[in-house]
């Protein structure tokens, strides 16, 4: 496989804290895949993301971009931050400009787009995230979920090579979660963006991911394609993460309704269709 970003044996302890947040973590992000980072609160997901775009430098170990170790010099950092887009868990943390449209346009000018092009992109992003009506509203008038959508739009409009999403669905309702997933699907298909999403929604992870990382206490506990990772029921139960509902349901159906060799369904619609077919037979 082709690795976009590699984390090798990285340790990091927050100043004033006794236990390390990252404790010898090693993982590699495959290029062009939709990855999910699973783990409990406090296992170090957010800290890991801050290492992936060079905000924090590891105490031990290295972070590599396409095989080249991070140098942490100014020019290098500003380049890496253009290539790696990070959407924080708390949107408040990254909104800069004061109106929604202005905030989304931030970064487009520095990326060398003309004003007209930038305006067109902003307009597209507004529509895709359902923000057309908030165009001219100041950011501090929005609800948390709306702010989150502005933050997502502002980072995704820049089309980074690697997109890091820290619990992106945390404040979103069903409609906007679906809009977000559709948008992720689109940029993954059209731009070939590599995406890493931190979440503890195991069902969402199963439905969406090509590649799964499980993190526990600042280390990598499991890694692999979803079918392999979620088949390790013993490890997942041990970590109190459990397995996806769909996985469980399939396991209950398999010997009696479907042959064991049949591929697992990845979403509810798929399962329904197969059940319908099975019942007709």
């Amino acid at each position: 496989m082709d690795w976009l970003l590699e984390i090798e044996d990285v340790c990091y302890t927050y100043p004033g804290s006794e236990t390390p947040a990252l404790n010898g973590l090693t993982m590699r992000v495959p290029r062009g895949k939709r990855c999910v980072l699973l783990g409990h609160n406090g296992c170090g997901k957010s800290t890991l993301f801050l290492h992936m775009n060079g905000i924090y430098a590891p105490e031990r170990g290295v972070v590599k971009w396409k095989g080249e170790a991070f140098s942490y010099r100014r020019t290098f950092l500003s380049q890496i931050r253009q290539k790696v887009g990070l959407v924080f868990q708390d949107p408040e943390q990254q909104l800069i400009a004061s109106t929604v449209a202005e905030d989304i346009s931030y970064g487009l000018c520095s990326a060398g787009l003309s004003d007209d092009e930038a305006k067109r992109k902003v307009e597209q992003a507004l529509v895709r995230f359902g923000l057309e009506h908030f165009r001219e509203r100041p950011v501090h008038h929005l609800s948390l979920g709306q702010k989150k959508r502005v933050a997502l739009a502002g980072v995704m409009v820049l089309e980074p090579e690697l997109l890091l999403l820290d619990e992106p669905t945390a404040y979103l309702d069903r409609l906007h979660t679906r809009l977000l997933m559709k948008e992720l699907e689109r940029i993954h298909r059209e731009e070939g963006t590599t995406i890493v999403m931190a979440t503890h929604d195991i069902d969402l992870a199963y439905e969406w991911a090509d590649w799964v990382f499980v993190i526990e206490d600042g280390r990598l506990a499991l890694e692999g394609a979803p079918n392999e990772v979620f088949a390790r029921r013993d490890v997942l139960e041990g970590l109190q993460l459990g397995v996806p509902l769909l996985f469980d349901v399939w396991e209950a159906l398999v010997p009696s309704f479907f042959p064991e060799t049949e591929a697992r369904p990845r979403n509810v619609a798929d399962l329904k269709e197969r059940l319908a077919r099975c019942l007709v037979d």
Partner: protein
Amino acid sequence: MKIQLDTLAYTNRLRHVSPIQKLVIGIIMLCFVMVAHAPTHIAVFVWMSVWIVGYAGIPWRIYLRLLGAISLFLALSLPPIMLEITARSIAEITEQTVFIYSFGVFHVYIGVAGMKKASALLLRSLSSVSCLYFILLTVPFTEILAVLRRIGVPCMVTDLLLVMYRFVFVFLETVEQLWIAYKARGARHGFSRKMRDAGGLVARLFARTVQRYQQLSIGLAARGFDGDLRVVASSHAFVSRRYAAEAAAVFLLLVALEWWTGR
């Protein structure tokens, strides 16, 4: 109050009139007030209020509250201007007095001249405040910044102002969250307990503000902020002919009024 000013600036009916036009009107009127005299002040105040409540559609209740807040400060500053104090006998006070109060050898009084001075000051202040409110209530802060940038104020200054402005809201939100959390978790009764709680809240507010400040700077770094904050101005502002015409005509009338009453 700050939040409200800002909200109105973004939602008022003059939002799409070019910020430069509004700033020019506001600033010219402000300068005019500085050189004009009492009757003109009243006219300026009335006219600016028409802009604010009539054209911009700011609810008059809010406008009155804003004026009330300022009037309170003005009222507090008037007594030192009006009151005179003297140790001479009452017979020696030559000017006309409106009010007099004596204790021992001292007499405290308000003279007619003092009254006039104070009321002239009050009118001047109110009319200049109305011009200022016109700017604050109709031009959003970011557009003021854009204009500053255009007339050549260094980007570093305007970006700093913008980040500070964002931070003011982060701060205010932290205050509000803490306050709501305090009330939701059962604010305690009794003065001394309340004061102790308030002490605790202020300490936590400080810690939280520092933390949020750090987070905001991490967030800015992640978006590649390196001191250059370029955004595409989003609003399609236009210069309104109708407002320009009215502004010019009324301004000439005001100058004429000033000349006529000042003779």
